[in-house]
């Protein structure tokens, strides 16, 4: 029986925090992760700056309900598409987790990307490797330690300021952000407080809170335990090969009991960012960061044993069964993901450059009898979804002689603005023996699109007979 594991790898028995100082890791997975971190950070930082079609690649102008995404222009009425987008992401996440465990956590989650890709390397640069950091943490406060701490926290704060401002730029565009900075916090108190608040949260999170977020707060971390099954491939210690563990003996005596491959060097434990011992099996705190895999491979190389004592395996594989990827769970998640993505693609493809809807105006009767004429008032609501201003032409035609008044037959609309155009149609009662359908035609000069709407002309029953 092994020694019992602590309740939480990052907590002392009295409940106080055990600050973790993961050791440096070299290896193929770490290299791959660094590349992924770099690409994701580059995307995040550049997204507001790279113009696509004259607009930022990503700008979520919440204040004006205008959203520019990869050259497309969206308004609040398109918000329903977020559902399809979110479903695609959610089912994608379910699929990946059921198949390969928490790769999101270890490879793509902003918490990991910024902590392992930015903050931890800064800490490593200023405070040195694990042994030095541990020693420094235990040292009493001295001038040297204070200087290191000040430099480190200042660097963390500076990085947080940059990340927070990039986040703000995603909402207001970098140009607007620069103007806001020039005009000062007093003129843009709300944006200033939001950015400052985000900076404070980032600094606190990446300076002190760190893995506590993943281990205690993050709901996805909790959700994953029901997304996994025994065929999910996770980071795993091959117990059958490793045990019984023990110190490496150069030339064992012939009568010593057979030893496993694990030399109990604890490299896998000291590199772990959440402070767990992967040899205790799959645990809730494991973020699939693969650092113990790299660490163990390095040790196995050195002692001349094959790699993969800590590797990727499902629970069933560890129990001696085969790997099974295509399971009903995986197929259902994949099908739902593809379905959501197809629905999203279709709804993006059939988006129209403008909207034209006909209403019967509030406060007016649906029809007005004026002597021998019947009049119908309408209201045409136009919404320009083009990324530029557009000019619309409105006309109403009737199959019988009619007097048509279109309030403003030509409407110039800025991008993502709307207008209501009143329309009044009068028809002599003698033409109203049969139902009359009017045709509203809206032509968009910019996109050249023409839209026709049929409007039923309303009249009292029995008129014109």
């Amino acid at each position, binding site marked *: 029986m092994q020694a019992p594991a602590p309740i939480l790898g990052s907590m002392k028995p009295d409940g106080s*925090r055990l600050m973790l100082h993961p050791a440096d890791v070299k290896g193929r997975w770490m290299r791959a992760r660094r590349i992924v971190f770099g690409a994701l950070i580059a995307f995040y930082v550049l997204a507001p700056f790279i113009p696509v079609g004259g607009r930022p690649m990503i700008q979520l102008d919440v204040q004006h309900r205008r959203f520019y995404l990869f050259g497309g222009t969206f308004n609040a009425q398109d918000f329903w598409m977020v559902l399809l987008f979110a479903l695609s992401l959610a089912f994608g996440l379910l699929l990946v987790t059921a198949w390969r465990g928490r790769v999101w956590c270890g490879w793509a989650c902003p918490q990991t990307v910024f902590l392992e890709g930015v903050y931890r390397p800064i800490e490593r640069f200023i405070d040195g490797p694990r042994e030095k950091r541990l020693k420094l943490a235990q040292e009493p406060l001295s001038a040297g330690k204070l200087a290191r701490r000040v430099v480190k926290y200042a660097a963390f704060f500076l990085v947080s300021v940059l990340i927070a401002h990039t986040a703000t730029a995603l909402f207001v565009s970098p140009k607007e952000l620069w103007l806001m900075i020039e005009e000062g916090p007093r003129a843009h108190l709300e944006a200033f407080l939001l950015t400052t608040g985000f900076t404070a949260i980032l600094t606190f999170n990446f300076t002190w809170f760190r893995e506590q977020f993943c281990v*205690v707060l993050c709901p996805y971390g909790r959700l994953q335990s029901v997304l996994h099954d025994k065929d999910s491939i996770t980071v795993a210690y091959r117990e059958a090969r490793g045990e019984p563990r023990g110190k490496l003996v150069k030339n064992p005596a012939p009568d010593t009991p057979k030893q496993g491959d694990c030399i109990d060097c604890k490299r896998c434990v000291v590199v772990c960012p959440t402070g767990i011992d992967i040899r205790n099996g799959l645990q809730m705190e494991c973020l699939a960061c693969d650092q113990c895999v790299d660490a163990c491979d390095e040790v196995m190389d050195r002692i001349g044993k094959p790699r993969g004592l800590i590797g990727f395996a499902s629970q069933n594989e560890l129990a001696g069964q085969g790997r099974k990827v295509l399971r009903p769970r995986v197929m259902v998640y994949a099908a739902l993901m593809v379905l959501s993505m197809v629905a999203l693609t279709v709804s993006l493809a059939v988006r129209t450059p403008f909207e034209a809807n006909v209403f019967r*105006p509030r406060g007016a009767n649906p029809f007005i009898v004026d002597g021998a004429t019947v009049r119908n008032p309408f209201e045409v609501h136009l919404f320009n979804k083009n990324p530029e201003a557009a000019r619309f032409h409105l006309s109403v035609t009737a199959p019988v002689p009619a007097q048509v008044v279109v*309030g403003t*037959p030509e409407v110039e609309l800025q991008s993502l603005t709307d207008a209501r155009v009143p329309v009044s149609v*009068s028809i002599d009662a003698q033409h109203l023996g049969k139902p009359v359908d009017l045709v509203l035609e809206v032509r968009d000069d910019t996109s050249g699109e023409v839209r026709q709407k049929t409007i039923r002309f309303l009249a009292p029953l029995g008129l014109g007979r």
Partner: protein
Amino acid sequence: MNAPQSSNDKVVHVYDDIREEDNQLPNWWLFILFATIVFSFGYWFVFHTTKKLPNPPEVYAADVDALKKARAAANPMSDEALADLAKDPAAVTAGKEVFASTCASCHGQQAQGLVGPNLTDKFWIHSNKPVELAKAVDLGFPDKGMPPWGPVLGPDKVRKVTAYVLSIQNTNVAGKEPQGEPVE
């Protein structure tokens, strides 16, 4: 599978092989619990006992009041204010533009009347008092074919187009026959 054993033996109960234990919580977590308890007393005292700070519904009501006042101040709707505006050339020019694009299709480019009545003679179906005129533009007479223009134009343009119509009163452009009552 060797599930990690807890260092704690205080098992509260076991059900379906799931053990509930009474483990130590992280101190920061407990700190949040106690901090919210302390905060609730302060909140209670400030917002409900002494009422030193306004509650959200009160803040909302005050904001709406302030907005209404600001809008009224920006768009004064009185006979005098509108009559003054009719003497402001900039406002009248702006109003004329609105008239040409919005009103002319019914009232004619010279306001001489087409479907709608002539606005330059002394005959008025409804009142020609400035406030009544602005109200006619704003709310319209939907039953008689005049649409409510307030939602389309907004209060500022309604005032300016009213100022324009006031400025051309009794210019007697030849057009549609008189409708309504003569107003001297």
